[in-house]
């Protein structure tokens, strides 16, 4: 099965700063997703990142706050901008392998704490 990695695995950041999270997949995939998960809570989809087009954001999430890049079929970044303590969460990337696979594979997550 495909391998997906994220970095950093965790970070502690000051409010008002920005953090970029990287997600790398070891094979080419069409659809990548970014989720946010509060400890003990469900997964909230932030956006779908498609290569070659703008990311599609879910209600409550905007590009200015969470800009996403998808420069190729194996890589994506999520930036959490102008952070506040409310942004403290686990951020997970995932991918959908495509027409022959229907399950989503998740990265190990980035645990972000904003002070």
């Amino acid at each position, binding site marked *: 099965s495909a391998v997906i990695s994220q970095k950093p695995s965790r970070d502690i950041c000051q409010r008002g700063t920005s953090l970029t999270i990287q997600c790398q997949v070891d094979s080419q995939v069409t*659809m990548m997703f970014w989720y946010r998960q509060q400890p*003990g809570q469900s997964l909230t989809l932030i956006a779908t990142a498609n290569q070659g087009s703008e990311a599609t954001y879910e209600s409550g999430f905007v590009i200015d706050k969470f800009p996403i890049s998808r420069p190729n079929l194996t890589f994506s970044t999520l930036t959490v901008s102008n952070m506040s303590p409310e942004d403290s969460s686990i951020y*997970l990337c995932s991918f959908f392998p*495509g027409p022959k696979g229907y399950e989503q*594979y998740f990265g190990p997550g980035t645990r972000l704490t904003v002070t």
Partner: protein
Amino acid sequence: GQQVMQIPQYQHVQEGEDFTTYCNSSTTLSNIQWYKQRPGGHPVFLIQLVKSGEVKKQKRLTFQFGEAKKNSSLHITATQTTDVGTYFCAGHKGGTSYGKLTFGQGTILTVHP
């Protein structure tokens, strides 16, 4: 929008007891998927159900998809400490079978030895 409700939110069992979590959607689903997230880990895919009334088994785990394709359940027989974690159901909106998933809130299972 589409909502997927999952109950119970928490379940504490003694090792050897059975466990069931239920998932209900406000709209018809194309399919239902189940994921398990170990403490400190990331969600891992368990299974997908597609057909109305479908039942699938994985060792001690039994998954069901309702006749109306709006509800699903996961039943674990004779729980073990390795079953500890959060179980999420997730579905695709009617008409699509890939891409964006809507996740339930998850059931956190604790197994006491």
